[in-house]
C-alpha cells in the first residue's frame, strides 16, 4: 500500500520548486516533466531536496525508468522510495 505521507511530501516539494503551478494541479499520477512543469533545472532541485530527506538511496533505477515518457510520476517515485527504504516490502 502506498504511503500517503510520502505522496504528500513529494507534492509539497513540487510546489516548492515550481511556483507556477497550483496545488490542485499536482496529481500523483501526472508526469513531473511533462505535466508538472519540472524542466531540467527544476527537476535537479526537486531531486536534490528529495535526496536530502532520503539520504543514501540510489535513485539510478528510478531515473532510468522515469526518463521514459509517463513514468516520472509522484506515485512511481513514492513507490520506489518506499521499496528502497524497506518501509513497504
Amino acid at each position, binding site marked *: 500500500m502506498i504511503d500517503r505521507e510520502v505522496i504528500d511530501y513529494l507534492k509539497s516539494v513540487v510546489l516548492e520548486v515550481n511556483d507556477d503551478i497550483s496545488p490542485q494541479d499536482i496529481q500523483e499520477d501526472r508526469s513531473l516533466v511533462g505535466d508538472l512543469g519540472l*524542466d531540467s533545472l527544476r527537476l*535537479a532541485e526537486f531531486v536534490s531536496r528529495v535526496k536530502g530527506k532520503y539520504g543514501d538511496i*540510489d*535513485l539510478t533505477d528510478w*531515473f532510468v525508468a522515469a*526518463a521514459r515518457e509517463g513514468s516520472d510520476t509522484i506515485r512511481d517515485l513514492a513507490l520506489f522510495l518506499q521499496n528502497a527504504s524497506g518501509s513497504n516490502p
Partner: protein
Amino acid sequence: MHRPTITKLKSSFPKHVLTQDEFCDAFHHKWYSDVPNVRELMKQTRVEKRHMAWDPREALATRSPEIQERMAVYKTAVLDMARPSIAGVLEGAPVSDVGSFVMASCTGYFGPTPDLMIAKEFQLRADLRRTFIGHMGCFAAFNVLKVAMDALAARPGEPVLANCSETCSLHFRPERTREQAIIHALFGDASVSALISNEESGAGVQLIRSRTEQLYDTHDLMTWDILADGFYMTLSPFVPLIIAEQIRGFMERLLAPEKLAVSDIRHWIIHPGGPKIVRSIATQLRLTEDDVEPTFRVLRERGNCSSGTVLLVLEDVLQNRKPEPGDYGVMMAFGPGLTMESILVRF
C-alpha cells in the same frame, strides 16, 4: 618512468563571437517567443559568450539552411578553425617524427576526412597512421587520448598529434521548445590540439590511467541524429541526475588501482556539459568552488564546445592554477551511451 605525456596544448576559435544577450536578442522573437522566460532560461546556462563558425544572425536570418549547405560551411570552417591550434603545437616540434594523428569531430562530415587535409597541409609523413573519430559527442577527447596512449604503447618513440574540432553552431535550428532553447544557448565552437609523446615526469601532463563505463540501459536518453536541416540533439533532463548518481563509484574505480582517493586529486578537469551536471558532480565528490572554477570559466567564456571542451579546461588549469610537479588531476566527460570517460593525470 616514461608515460604518455601531453607536452603541448593549444586552442583556436572561429572569428564570430556572440554574447548570450546578442544571441537571445536575435532569436528571442524569431524562434523562442512561445517558450516562457527564455531569456532567464538562457542565462541559467551561465554561458556569457561563444565563438561560432558562422554568424547565426545572418546565416539563419530568413530560413533554416539544408544539411548540404551546413556541411559545405563545415568543410571550410573546420580546417580554418583547426589550423592555428595545429600550427601552435607543431611549432618547433620534430614534425617528421610524428607517427600518428588522431582527430575527433562530431559536427560535420566529408571525405577524405579533415585529418587527411590537415596532414597534407602540414606535410606530415606519408606513412602517418591516421584515425578520425566521428559522432561520439562530448567525450570524444578521451577516445583521442586513448588512441594516443595505445599508439605510444605500440610505438614508444613516435609522437602523436591529437585534435578535437567542433562547429556546434552550424546545427542551430528553429524549434520552439525549452529543450532546444537550452541546447542553443549552451554550445559553441572550438578546436584544441595536443602533442603527445612518451616522457619522464615533469615534461607535461602525464596520462596515467583511463576508465570508461557505459550505462547501456540509458542509450536513448541522449541522442545526436541527422535531419534535413542540421544535426539534432536530444537530452533527457534525467541525464545529469543519472551521471551524478554514478560519479563517486566511477571515480573510485578509476583511482583505486593507483591507490588514490578523491581527496588526493588537486585539479579537477570536468567537461562543462551544463551548470547543473557540474554542480551535481561537485556535490557528490565534495568539491569546492575553487575546484570547479576552471570548468565554469570555460563554460562562461566558450560555452560547451563538445569534444574539445575538456581540453580547454585542461588548458585553463595549466594557465591559471599552475599545478605543481607531481600534482594529480582527473579529467572527465560524459555523453551519448550514456558513456562516462575519465583519465587520471599527473602534472
